[in-house]
């Protein structure tokens, strides 16, 4: 019996030696986590939390799944010569030169993707995670699940679907998600995600996309990874996550923020026109993601009530009286009639139909391409129409269930009216209902 035990012990030792030799031969799996340019560094204190603790946790989980892996954390430093690359607490820190404060602090700019692409190549990484501002509030499970999707499931793009209350991310519900779903077939809820995990080829693709943007504009230009992945035929998926602290941009008012995001989206749509005009685009490869919510993650109720829509409706009525001539350059007579009826509606029954909002968005996207008027003016003229939609949304959606139903109905309306956009895009002078 003793000899049998010895044989078993010898066999186990041989197996572990074999594994150790195999791991020593295979190159280490490197995962790069890029912190936002507005981050203060891994050790900075954010009300008792620090990014260092979060990164340590993520590194530990990564090593438990894959012992032969290494986490690298890239953080902004204004003078990289004064900061050395360190390896401590289970991950390696890599400083990069911050481009200075940018206006797009709550979303990733082309500069962020270009930097990620450069760092990926320099450090031979297999996966890159871009974290937006206020990343200290992210639960480690979320980041681990995103990395797992990219490395284990072979997903090219993984984004978290955070728990968003009905009165948050309203512009995403109004335009970004429905347009992304209608034109690119993507079910990803936040096309302009704060946190993104990408495979090496996805990062390379995004790096190539930044080449289209002049160097001076990269810090303030937005890229759309979901659309890029769809056009390239890459796979994407979502991790169902809990809450995250949303960053705040102090320098932009609503008009400027809307002009920045909507203008970038319309330009991206124009660039990818050949893809979304296909009759039967190839179906998107969607990866199934983990659900890392905890029992405490629940949706809050809608905090706005009917009276909160009053200033928005007044703003729309003022705009209707003053901007009608400008809108008539962009919108066809049907839409103008719809807006006229809307301006005459009493506050209690103020409702912008999904069909009207869809036509407005599509016509503005077309006008952006045709340069019917100056693009700054065009996007400025869109703001009151968006506020009218928000007023209608507040009055229609009284709870979280209503908000979800409204969002899905709107996305379906965008999909149903896509032929209108295709027709007008191809024949802008001939087809004008």
């Amino acid at each position: 019996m003793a000899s049998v035990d010895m044989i078993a012990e010898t066999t186990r030792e041989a197996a572990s030696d074999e594994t150790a030799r195999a791991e020593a031969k295979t190159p280490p799996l490197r995962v790069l986590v890029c912190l936002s340019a507005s981050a203060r560094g891994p050790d900075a204190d954010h009300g008792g939390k620090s990014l260092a603790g979060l990164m340590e946790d993520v590194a530990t989980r990564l090593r438990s799944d894959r012992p032969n892996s290494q986490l690298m954390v890239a953080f902004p430093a204004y003078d990289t010569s004064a900061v050395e690359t360190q390896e401590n607490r289970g991950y390696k820190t890599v400083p990069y030169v911050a481009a200075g404060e940018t206006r797009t602090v709550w979303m990733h700019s082309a500069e962020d993707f270009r930097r990620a692409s450069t760092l990926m190549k320099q450090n031979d990484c297999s996966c890159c995670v871009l974290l937006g501002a206020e990343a200290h509030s992210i639960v480690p499970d979320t980041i681990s699940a995103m990395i797992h999707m990219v490395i284990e499931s072979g997903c090219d793009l993984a984004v978290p679907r955070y728990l968003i209350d009905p009165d948050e991310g309203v512009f995403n519900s109004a335009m970004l998600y429905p347009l992304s779903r209608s034109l690119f077939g993507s079910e990803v809820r936040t096309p302009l995600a704060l946190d993104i995990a990408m495979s090496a080829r996805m990062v390379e693709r995004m790096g190539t996309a930044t080449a289209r943007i002049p160097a001076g504009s990269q810090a303030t230009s937005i890229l759309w990874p979901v659309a890029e992945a769809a056009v390239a035929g890459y796979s994407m998926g979502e991790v169902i996550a809990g809450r995250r602290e949303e960053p705040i941009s102090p320098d932009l008012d609503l008009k400027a923020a809307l002009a920045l995001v909507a203008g970038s989206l319309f330009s991206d749509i124009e660039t990818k026109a050949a893809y979304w005009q296909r009759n039967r685009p190839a179906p998107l490869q969607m990866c199934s993601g983990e659900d890392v919510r905890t029992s405490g993650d629940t949706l809050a109720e809608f905090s706005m009530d009917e009276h909160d829509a009053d200033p928005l409706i007044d703003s729309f009525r003022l705009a209707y009286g003053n901007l009608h001539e400008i809108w008539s350059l962009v919108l066809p007579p049907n839409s103008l009639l719809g807006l006229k009826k809307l301006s005459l509606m009493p506050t209690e029954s103020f409702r912008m139909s999904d069909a009207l909002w869809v036509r407005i968005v599509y016509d503005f996207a077309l006008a952006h391409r045709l340069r019917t008027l100056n693009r700054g003016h065009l996007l400025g003229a869109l703001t009151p129409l968006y506020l009218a939609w928000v007023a209608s949304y507040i009055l229609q959606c009284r709870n979280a269930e209503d908000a979800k139903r409204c969002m899905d109905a709107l996305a379906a309306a965008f999909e149903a009216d896509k032929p209108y956009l295709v027709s007008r895009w191809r024949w802008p002078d001939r087809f004008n209902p």
Partner: protein
Amino acid sequence: MFSQIRIALTGSLERVLTKLATFLPGVMALLLAVILLTLVGAGLAWIVKRLLTRIRFDERVGLENSAGVSDWSPGHSPTLLATRIVFWACVTLGVAVGISAFDAAYDGKADISAFLLPYIAHSIGSIVLLLAGTVVARFLARSVLIGAVNAKLQYARGLSVGVKWLVLVFTGAMVLNNLRIGGMVVDLAFGILFGGIVLTMALAVGLGSRDIVARSLDRSVSDLNPGSTERTVAARNSEEKPRVLRHF
């Protein structure tokens, strides 16, 4: 006496016809120069248009300069702008050559070209000023209108019209000054008109709607708060949590 009248009339008719005969070749030379160079200009414009269309000039300019040439160009097409510049440059050259030819063919003593050519240059400059001023006036008026509407100012349209007329009056004064028409009268009239418009707008905005301006400024300050992407609605009572709508 009748014979003397007849001689006088015949003599003056002869002189006029002689003058006309010497004048006509100059006019023909002027017309010929203008027509020829107009045709050359049309041909060059066609070549330039084909070339720029082939290299997708409009798309390249639009991609790299979204808020520049494409927005100012006629029909939002930099190609069209370039072809029109080429065409009208050739026409202008034709007029200049024609005037020199007229001067040479007519009578060396008058030296009409020394008088006409600078005036034509000033006229062309004035036309360019007028066009630029009109475009700038429309652009600024629209910018002010959209900005004022988004800032919820009730007098947005008045402000926009005021800005437009300010720029147009300024442009008109510059054009007349460039053409040397009116002299001091134009300068004084411009000063009075421009100052009057500015004073009127200042009184209307400052005195007539100071409450509205104060409310608008208060709203603008609260909208520019951190979370400028948020709309914070004041709670109805101190115990109620402030309600926030986040657009992004």
